[in-house]
């Protein structure tokens, strides 16, 4: 299982637009990617509702996980998206 922990850079956290950009990218990997915050259950990273429900704020650390072929590359891409500014490429 591949894992990446990253600090969310989006100034509004993972809210509507940044969350939409991120979940689309997560769905686009074709893998079952999960997202979790410290001490919380991992949720489906391809679900905007699940991601928004985490209420991730700017500067919060989150963990991405995935299994299977290409998991490392996929998580690198998603981690870069979170560390940059989702929704404002």
């Amino acid at each position, binding site marked *: 299982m591949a894992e990446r922990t990253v600090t969310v850079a989006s100034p509004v956290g993972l809210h*509507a*637009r940044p969350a*939409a950009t991120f*979940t689309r990218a997560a769905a686009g990997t074709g893998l079952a990617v999960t997202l979790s915050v410290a001490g919380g259950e991992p949720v489906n990273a*391809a*679900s905007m*509702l*699940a991601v928004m*429900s985490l*209420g991730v704020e700017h500067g919060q650390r989150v963990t991405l996980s995935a299994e299977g072929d290409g998991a490392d590359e996929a998580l690198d891409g998603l981690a870069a998206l979170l560390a940059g500014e989702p929704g404002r490429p």
Partner: protein
Amino acid sequence: MDRLAPRAPGSGTPATGAPTAGASTAGTPGGELTGRGVSPGRVRAPLVRLAAPPRTSVTDPVGNDPAAEHARVERALAEVSADLAGRSSRAGGVVAEVLDATSALAADPELAGAVGRHLHAGAPTGHAVTLAVEEYCDRLAAHGGYLAERVTDLRDVGARAVAVLAGVPMPGIPAPGHPVVLAARDLAPADTATLPGGDVVALVTEQGGPTSHTAILARSLGLPAVVACPGIAAVAEGTEVLVDGTAGRVWVDPPAALRDDLPGAADRPAGAGPGRTRDGRAVPLLCNVGTLAEARAAGFSAAEGVGLLRTEFLFLGRRTRPRVTEQAEAYAGVLAAFGDRPVVVRTLDAGSDKPLEFLPLGAEDNPALGLRGLRTAAVHPDALDEQLAALAEAARRAHRPVAVMAPMVSTVAEARAFVARARAHGLERVGVMIEVPAAALRADELLAAVDFASIGTNDLAQYTMAADRAAGALGELLDPWQPAVLDLVALVGRAGRRHGTPVGVCGEAAADPLLAAVLVGLGADSLSTAVAARPGVLAELAGLTVDDCVALAEAARAATGPGDARAAARRVREARR
């Protein structure tokens, strides 16, 4: 504004429960409700309410096969998602973004999954959707702020899916055929997306905050809006309300003192007859409008017509060019709102400083002197032809005439070409804006080629004084009292008289009562201002004869600077009144 500040009797000071303090006065004539103003402007009209969406219950019949019901729900959610995406592609701008996000919520895999769990636990099909939606609403609401405001969007997705499952239509925005203030618990993006071009002139919601979609969309549509106003729930449908989206207040059955000078639905403001000088020369006082909502509200004011309908609102923020039918519908709505009063429509005034995705013009170092206004038609002739065709169609639909004018005309050749083009589309009354000094200097030939002209004093001042309108430090150069600007207005006025071509003024200068009198003295036949400026201009002209206005104009032009010009005009006015 000041007159709105005193609280109406009986409204009291909100005690601990501010929301109920507002509600307690509901229904009382003069009662005042407080909320949060999120989109500025004031308007009054009868209240209508958005019908409640379909409800589900745990006692509804349960389907036989949870797996089959789950498949039905997935199809319903997919249909809702596709419907919202379709609305988005027709909307454009901020509305499209909001609808895209809501469409994504409907397609969310976890939402369908949660519905499945409730179905397998024995819930009725529609109610399983409600339960799943409420589950996520609770989680979002727990975070407060922005995420909590998304609850409305999610509930709307659920209600739409429930409606699809039950085979019933979703309640839409009421369209009674006259201006109304729309009240609702909150508005979902899909509701607000149908507001443009409708009868709604203001919004009041019980819930919502400054980042709610109601607020964002109301601002983008130019509709006054008050949110977080729980008291509105107790106001009966049909009651006249006055909405102040700037102050965040709503007056129920507003007292007469508050009704004066306000565009409203029931009657025209008191003391607002047609514009005329003391000696009886008619000077129609028209209004400038920039959105459909503004036009609808202004249609109920005393304005004698529209001197400038800016059409940019139809185009800004759009991904694709609005179709001819859509444009025609919007223009016909404005024409209908003004009955038989004249309406002058300005064709799209775009440029590289106001870029449009579908009208690529390239970057320019000096956009104010670049491809702007009518000049863009040389690069994108189709856009102008479509707009002219839409205007002709709107006039047919509304069974009344319409006047059209082009912005940023510099030469007689441009004016002639525009007139020929508009006539080819069947438009009978065709004019030009005079904003470029070259057009004013050659007004004699120009006014012989058109049916009317309208002076845009803001741009005329910018181009005459070579001073960027956006440069605050150049304020004095941009003062419309600059004698050089007045000289050019005089040239146009004189040419208008010579050819019998009406000359109007639609810049901010016309809103200054004393300067309005000067403009009449320089030969302006009509003045077009914001609705709010009309009473001041009306009163000023009523106190002066045409000769007085001419004397004011001569005194102003004899001055050497804007301050002197203003003082000179004032002295003449005091001596003559």
